[in-house]
């Protein structure tokens, strides 16, 4: 039985196969998943916000923001033996959990911004996004299988998907 490592909110982690990385209950947050298919190394980040530019204070939690989490996760995976050229990405989450009926509420639309910003950064870094299950209005739990790179997306009432 290979181990399951849980990635919390505003957290990231990586493993060398075998093993499973999981994060539970992604809402407007985005699960960024990296996989090096050659070296069988997987990484996962559960980010809450698009950019660290809005952060104040000198010490930030890098796993909380898409821009810094991507850097940190790449560093971690490379330190474990992954090569950036072999790394591809999958994304899940970024939902709008509650309908906004009070005009434009930016907080409720943060999921969309998180996904947009993540895609933009990955494009700049030349990391190919091979699959994504994002948006809509429901929560997602994801599991990355490090042997194969398969990402399982579980939902409540919206089925289970392999991406």
């Amino acid at each position, binding site marked *: 039985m290979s181990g399951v490592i849980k990635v919390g909110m505003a*957290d990231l982690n990586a493993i060398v196969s075998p093993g499973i990385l999981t994060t539970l209950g992604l809402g407007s947050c985005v699960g960024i998943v990296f996989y090096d298919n050659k070296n069988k190394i997987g990484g996962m980040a559960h980010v809450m916000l698009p950019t660290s530019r809005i952060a104040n204070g000198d010490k930030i939690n890098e796993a909380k923001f898409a821009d810094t989490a991507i850097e940190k996760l790449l560093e971690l995976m490379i330190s474990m033996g992954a090569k950036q050229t072999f790394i591809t990405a999958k994304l899940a989450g970024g939902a709008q959990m509650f309908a906004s009926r009070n005009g434009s509420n930016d907080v409720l639309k943060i999921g969309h911004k998180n996904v947009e910003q993540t895609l933009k950064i990955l494009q700049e870094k030349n990391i190919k996004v091979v699959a994504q299950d994002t948006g809509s209005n429901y929560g997602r739990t994801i599991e990355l299988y490090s042997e194969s790179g398969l990402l399982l997306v579980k939902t409540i009432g919206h089925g289970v998907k392999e991406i």
Partner: protein
Amino acid sequence: MSLSFEQINESYMDILKELGNIGAGNAATSLSVMLNRRIDMSVPQARIVGFGDLESIIGPEDALVAAIYLEFTGDIQGTIMFVLSQDSAKNLLLLLIGCEMNPKGSDAFSELEISALQEVGNIVAGAYLGAVARFTNLTMKLSVPSFAFDMIGAVLSVPLIEFGQMSDKALFIETDFLNGGDSIKGDFLVIPDMESYSIILNALGVM
């Protein structure tokens, strides 16, 4: 001026708890009147929770819940969430309406059920804020309620992201409601934004 978590000391937490007590007392009464049942409430907790130890407060992040979400704006701003397990939500509906609206064992909630739950959230949150407003002399307005039947981590991500912009922690004022038979157990979370804490404490003359 905005407070940071480091500046929120024990006595501030006690004041927030007391405020929670006043609000939740009123909310429990309104729920009790609506259901014509005795509703008990726990002593409100004011807690600062790191995003990493969310599980210790709410249980597994993928647990299925019915959540009613409201925002308040005005002198202070924030989010109110009334969270119920699926069974509790169905039992509440049964008491409220007096008959089953959905086939027994049905997982989801019908439009009518959602609308009834939203109205419950509206009344309970209104009673809570009304008491807080009278006590602090602050004015606030409640948004239209929204509903989600989903994983608790996913629904809570909404107010937590708001905190995430400034901190790695969130401050909750939490009260449990339950009726005598334990068939309804709800969790009422009030999450004012960071700027609101100093305004509350100022309004009460303690800062």
